Each structure stands twice: as C-alpha cells, then as structure tokens.
C-alpha cells in the first residue's frame, strides 16, 4: 500500500502540484493522466524517492519512504523511464541485469542463480528473450522501451512505477505492454503508470489520477474521471464521451 499525504511535488524553485492525498492498494493499477508539464513524471520520481517531496510525505506499507536506505527503497519500488541513454557496447542482458543492483551487497559482482532467473522472467515478459545478447544500440526505439520495462521487472519489486511506458511503441506492442501491466497488478503488484492515451488508461487501469495545473483534479474509477467537464478542466479541450461495453471512452472534438 502506498499512501500519499498532502504531497506537493516540484523541481528547482517550482512546485508543480500540491495537496495530493491518495491511497494506492497492493494489486491496483493506477494511471496518472494530465497535460504536459503538470508534474506527472516528477510525481512518480517523488513516489520512488529520487526527488524529495516539497511538502507532505509518501508512505510505503506504513513506513515513511525517506526513512529507507536507497537499496532498500529500490527493492520495494522500481521506476521505469523511457529517457534514452548512450550505452554503447552494453547488451540487452547487461541492461536488464542492472535491475538486480539492489539485490547485491557491494562486494558481490557476479550474477547468481536468482539473478539469472529474474532476468529471464523479465525478458520473457516483454518478449525479448531472443534479443538477450544483442547490443542495446541495435534495437528499435520500441524494443529499447521494452528493455527498460524488463529492467524494472528484474528488480522484482512489489511496486512498479512507469513513466509513459507505451511511448515509441506501435499499437499492438503498446497493448501487449498494458496487458502485461494489468496481469502484474492482478498478481498483486502495485502499478502506477503515467499515460497520455485516456482510452488506454480507462481500458486497463483500475483508477485514474487526473492532474491539472497545481492540483489533483480527481482520483477515481474511469467512469467518474473521464467526464467531459473534468477533461476540459485538465486539458482545455472539449470531448465527447461514448459508452462502450468495455466502459467509457472519450474523443476530442476536432474543428472542421
């Protein structure tokens, strides 16, 4: 269980969003939505403890996150970001193996059997077993995205935070990744994921957190968040809502 209490997040001298109160249960899939620049990425970085909270605090199973040492924190929460990195001559296996860092004391350099198994499971989950020995630089942007996700999965944490995990992915792979995250949540992992596609979020997440300028506008089930009035408040656009057997979907009005 993650508890966000009166949380304010920001970077440098700027606070992006304040007064966030939310509880995210084990096994829940929460999608974080909102326009560019409202602090979605910074919120995830604050939840995983790599950016300090401006106010309020984050609790993990009743313990203040800031009381945990970096390695202990990384055994509890994994953070997947899609920012690219120059990693010439690292193979896919090497990159995914970095996710095992918090499971090793400093003197233990070699991978052990449980590392091998975790790396294998992570690569299997993102369908990259065949690419294990390929240099990272030879991968497409979609494959690189899957490697970053595999690195997060290899951490084998109860909580998984993902910043736009479907960017760069084609529609089929994007849905495969979201279905994977859904399965992970069904097996008890807490998944918190920044997404831009409102309908993907509604299709896969249990709840949606909608951020607007400086405040959280809603954190509820898709039916109560994907309303034209809330979407207009967050994004400044008008949308039409359509009820489907799978739940509500929204479509932006495009001026002709």
């Amino acid at each position, binding site marked *: 269980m993650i508890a966000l209490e009166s949380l304010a997040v920001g970077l440098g001298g700027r606070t992006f969003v304040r007064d966030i109160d939310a509880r995210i249960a084990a096994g829940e899939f929460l999608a974080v939505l909102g326009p560019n620049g409202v602090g979605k990425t910074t919120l995830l*970085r604050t939840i*995983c403890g*790599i950016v300090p909270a401006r106010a309020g605090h984050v609790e993990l199973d009743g313990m203040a996150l800031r009381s945990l*040492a*970096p*390695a*202990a*924190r*990384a*055994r509890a929460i*994994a*953070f997947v*970001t899609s*920012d690219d*990195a*120059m*990693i*010439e*001559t*690292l*193979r896919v296996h*090497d*990159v995914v*193996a*970095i*996710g095992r*860092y*918090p499971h*090793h004391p*400093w003197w233990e*350099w*070699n991978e052990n059997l449980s590392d091998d198994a975790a790396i294998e499971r992570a690569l299997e989950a993102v369908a990259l077993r065949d690419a294990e020995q390929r240099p990272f630089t030879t991968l497409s942007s979609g494959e690189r995205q899957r490697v*970053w996700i595999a*690195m997060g999965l290899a*951490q084998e944490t109860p909580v998984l935070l993902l910043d736009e995990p479907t960017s760069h992915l084609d529609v089929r792979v994007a849905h495969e990744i979201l279905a994977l995250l859904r399965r992970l949540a069904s097996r008890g992992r807490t998944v918190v994921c920044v997404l831009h596609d409102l309908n993907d979020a509604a299709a896969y997440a249990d709840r949606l957190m909608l951020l607007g300028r400086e405040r959280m506008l809603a954190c509820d089930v898709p039916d109560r968040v994907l309303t034209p009035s809330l979407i207009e408040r967050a994004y400044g656009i008008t949308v039409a809502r359509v009820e489907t057997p799978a739940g509500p979907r929204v479509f932006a009005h495009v001026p002709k």
Partner: protein
Amino acid sequence: MVSLRFVLLVSMALLALFGSLLAGGSAIAPADIASALLHPHQTSDIATIVWQLRMPRVVIAAVVGAALAIGGALLQGMLRNPLVDPYLTGVSAGAAAAIALAILAGVAAPALPALGFVAGLLTAVLVAALARRGSGVDPNRLILAGISISALFSAVVAFAIARSNSLDAAQSILAWLAGSLAGRGWNDLLFALPYLGAGTLLALLAAPALDALRVGDIRARAVGVDVDRAQWLILASTSLLAAASVALAGMIGFIGLIVPHVARRLVGSSARFLLPVCALLGAALCALADAIARSIVAPSELPIGVLLAFIGVPAFLYLYLRQERPA
C-alpha cells in the same frame, strides 16, 4: 566465452611482461631470465640485472598502465563520455605546472615526483570543487573545469619553458612531459603504492554502480545507487591513480583514453569484466611500450608517451575503423 577470453588475456599480459624483461642494454637469454625469476636469491649478475634493474621498471610500467586504464574506464563510464581520460581531473596539468616551476627554481630532481603527486592531487581537489553541484558532481561542470584548469596549467608550463635560461632546464621539463620510466626503482614504487592501493580500493567500492551510472543518473538512483557517493568515489579513485602514475612515470597519454575502448570491444561494458580487462591491457601495453622505448635506440631511450602515441594511435584507429566498416 568471456572466461576464455579472460584466460587468453591473462596469458598474453603475462607473456608481454616476461617479454619486457628481455629488453635492455645487456642481451640475456629468456632461459636465464626465467631462472633468475625462479631463484630470486641468486647473487649472479643476471639476477641483479633482472631483480634490481629490469623488474622494478616492468612492474612500475605495468602498474602505471593498469592504473591509467582503470581510471579512464571509471571516468568514461561515470560521465557517459568516451572522450575523457583520467587527466580530466587536472592531475597531470597541475603536476606538470608544479614540476616545471620547480625545475625553473632549481629544485633537486629526486623531489620532483613527490611534488608532482601533491600538486596533481591539489589540482584534482580544485577541479572537483568547481564541478560540485549540491551534494554531487555535475558531469558537464567537471568536463568544463577539467579542461579549463588543464589549459591554465599548460600555459604555466609553456611560460616556464619560455622563461628557462638553460637548455637543460627546458629539456628536463619536456622530458617529464613526454613521460619516462628511466631510473625508476623499487623505492619509487613503494612511495606510490599506498596511493595506488587506496585508488584501487575506491575503484572497487564504486565499480558495482558503474553499469547503473551508464544508463543515466535517474535510472541509477531508481535501482538504489547513491549517485553522489559513487561519483565522489570515482573522482577520488581516478585522481589518486592518476596522481600516483604521474609521480612514477610523468605524463603518459593514450592509455587512459584508448585502452577502455579496446577493452569494451573485447568484453563489453559490464564493469565486472571491463575493469579487470582494462587493468590487464593497460599493464601489458605500458610494459611493452617501455621495453620498446628503451631498446629501439639503445643505449639512449625514447620517451614512452611519445612512443605510445606514435605506435598506439594509428594501430587503434586501424582496429576501430576496421570493426566499424560494414561487412
């Protein structure tokens, strides 16, 4: 596969070190060298030449080569920049400036290595202070500070050469800048050993974080790396290794920049393979280069730094470009 390559590299490095023992003013057969090595308490001339003249030099060359290559690999990994070498810490420029001014002031030659070591470390502290941001190191600031301070101290060296009244003083400065192991013995190694040991220990402490640092600070923090601590460890380790190397052999370029590239081509970037292979390649290359430097125009010597640049750079470019070419 990697372990087979590792065994081959260890064998080649040992062979290179043994080969380096063959080079020198007196021709000694390999069997006699081997015999002297196996019986260190012999009192023959050959044993004296091997243990008191050649061995310290080969060991120092190997240690310097390994230290510079490890420092280069650490710094390149931390900064995610393949174009940096251990001298980015300002160690060599600071040491060079201090030694040039000391030669100009007539300081006795035996005091120069220690002076260079202290000045190099102080310069590294200055560069680190300029690169500091918050509780960590800003990679861009480090590069800027390293290049700027090095340029400033290079100007001091040029000034010292221009102001030197005697040709001897100017030649001493230039000889030191070109790098040399001439006249080095066990005592020099003993002086540098604590600092080399400390630098190696810090490198071992920082090494597990190196792979994570290569995929970006944010990801490194997310997997539990204390990035600030790792950066300071790497900077301290590289500065100690480079300062001890500079005190032992003057400025030896090329190794800290190029050996990590070659090592990555051989075993990839994973630190647990990269660092030992860098140490082996650096040691073998520096020992061989020193052997060639002292035998190619015997009885005089070529500066090892110059030799490494003349032979090593074209060889590296050939290998690198050949591998880059599509099949």
